[in-house]
């Protein structure tokens, strides 16, 4: 249908002198997992709290299906949320926590048992939530989010602090929910985590939008191809390659980094010029590195913004030049 389920328009939030969210605009499309990515302190949690009506924005709007969260009549049937900070009274049992939330939405008691079973907390449902481990607390938070069988799920760092088992559980759960047609906005500061689960990415840094595109586009854009070449005759090879407009730089250890030319073509040129090659390795930045480069860029934009105020830092696909690819931790592309 193409109608965005979550729409954030020109959203800003300041806490004192700090701008947590800075004129953010993006939309979350239905039926897929949208990864909400940014370094710690980028404003992800604040944005989610603004969407959920917990904080009041200084400007802009956030709507769910065209309506601000505060105007939803049975909000938990529409939107399920897992916040980063715990939202459970430590003295109340898991069962009663979910029970009171269910009552507020007119949901039957049986639904509480269902979600407890779904997250595997049936055994400890009568125990005080204050005694729960981080993983159990996270499961209880997920249970609360799923209680009203909402179409929209907003999950803030759901895998934070979980053991690998818990991480896998949440990852599979999100995929299952997306498979069942749910719309999921999930935040993380880990690119690798998002690469495994998300279909679409919204990347922010310092409260500003850096990218809003599919994971494939983001990866393609972020990992500009380059080839690492080692040869005992570097000067000769550089001359050959620069004649056909390849961009060659010399790394600290004497290796050459060639951009704008595929490995096979470099090999052919070298062979034709009778240059011996010791190594010819296509490389790309790891996703984590690409993400760090991107968000570092956003910090620079922020610092420079005073110089060119008319130029918005919001960058669509491709407009942000991919940064230099670190030679370390090279990966062989297929």
């Amino acid at each position: 249908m193409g109608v965005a389920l979550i729409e954030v328009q020109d959203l800003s939030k300041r806490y004192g002198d700090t701008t947590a969210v800075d004129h953010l605009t993006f939309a979350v499309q239905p039926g897929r997992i949208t990864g909400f990515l940014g370094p710690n302190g980028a404003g992800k949690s604040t944005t989610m709290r603004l969407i959920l009506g917990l904080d009041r924005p200084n400007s802009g709007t956030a709507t769910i299906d065209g309506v601000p969260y505060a105007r939803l009549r049975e909000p938990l049937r529409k939107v399920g949320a897992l916040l980063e900070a715990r939202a459970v009274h430590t003295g109340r049992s898991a069962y009663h926590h979910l029970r009171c939330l269910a009552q507020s939405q007119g949901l039957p008691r049986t639904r509480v048992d269902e979600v407890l079973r779904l997250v595997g907390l049936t055994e400890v449902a009568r125990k005080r939530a204050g005694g729960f481990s981080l993983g159990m607390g996270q499961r209880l938070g997920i249970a609360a989010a799923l209680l009203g069988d909402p179409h929209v799920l907003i999950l803030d760092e759901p895998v934070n602090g979980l053991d690998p088992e818990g991480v896998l559980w949440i990852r599979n759960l999100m995929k299952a929910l997306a498979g069942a047609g749910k719309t999921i906005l999930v935040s993380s500061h880990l690119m690798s985590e998002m690469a495994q689960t998300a279909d679409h990415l919204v990347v922010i840094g310092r409260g500003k939008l850096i990218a809003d595109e599919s994971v494939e586009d983001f990866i393609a854009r972020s990992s500009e191809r380059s080839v690492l070449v080692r040869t005992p005759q570097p000067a000769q090879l550089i001359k050959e390659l620069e004649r056909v407009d390849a961009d060659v730089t010399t790394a600290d250890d004497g290796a050459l980094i060639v951009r704008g030319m595929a490995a096979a073509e470099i090999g052919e040129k070298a062979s034709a010029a009778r240059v011996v090659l010791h190594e010819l390795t296509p490389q790309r930045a790891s996703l984590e590195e690409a993400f760090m480069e991107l968000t570092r860029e956003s910090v620079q934009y922020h610092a420079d913004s005073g110089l060119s105020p008319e130029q918005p830092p919001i960058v669509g696909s491709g407009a942000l030049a991919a940064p230099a690819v670190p030679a370390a931790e090279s990966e062989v592309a297929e």
Partner: protein
Amino acid sequence: MTTAATTPPTPPAAPAPATPAESPNTGPSGFAAFPRVVAMEWTKFRTVRSTVYSFLALVIVTLGLAALITWLSVSSWDTLDADRRAAYHRDATGTILSSGIGLGQVAICVLGIMVIASEYSTGMIRASLLAVPKRTPMLAAKGLVFAAVTFVIGEIVSFGAFAIGAPILRSKVRVSLGDHGVLRALIGVGLYLMMLGLFALAVGAIIRHTAGAIIAVIVFVVVLAPLAQLLPGSLGKHVHAYLPTEAGQLVGQSAQGPKDLLSPWQGYGVFCLWTAVLLLAAGWLLKRRDA
């Protein structure tokens, strides 16, 4: 989704849907939804230990002290302060009750604060406001549940303390339920405790920290009254008379004291007004502030 999750405890296969999907905005609104919020607050209220402990403290402390202090007064009647003896003669009911309520009411203050401030300290407030994003119905329902329960238990305590204290006092002062002002005073103590609970709830909702709110209530109840009396002339008398708990306590007396400026119901009205203003401020702040 195709790869079955091998992780415990349950593979997250397609989650079962809840009750038949209603359209998001066809649920009951406004007043129709309020009973649900009350149900939520009732569950919250009865499922934490502090509720039970606080009411237990109220009952034990009030009944225990009412019995103990009345007994001590009777057994040392001849050496008793003349003012104290006069108080028993003038207002036996109020004197019996206040010996217990004086300390017992602290439990209601603490519980009223905890009911809301603990939501902030634990983070539960976020879950509550996600469920009731209009916010003020949550505060209203909380106040309603807490006030209703406190009123019922307050009346039990009030009549209980009288039932224990009056027979002890019998050898010195005779007082019975039918005497002038006694029934009103007994009902009045329950009303006072109920309003005190709401007063503390409002302060807790405004300050949002248990310790800070307790200090604020103590300042109101314990510190301001003696300070006001230090003010010169009739100004001090008037300020003192209109302080929330000083005014509110009058409804728990069966007879006017010689220095009382307000009648029992006037005093209670002043206390209600204080509480109403604080509750409105709490509701306004709840609506405006970030949770």
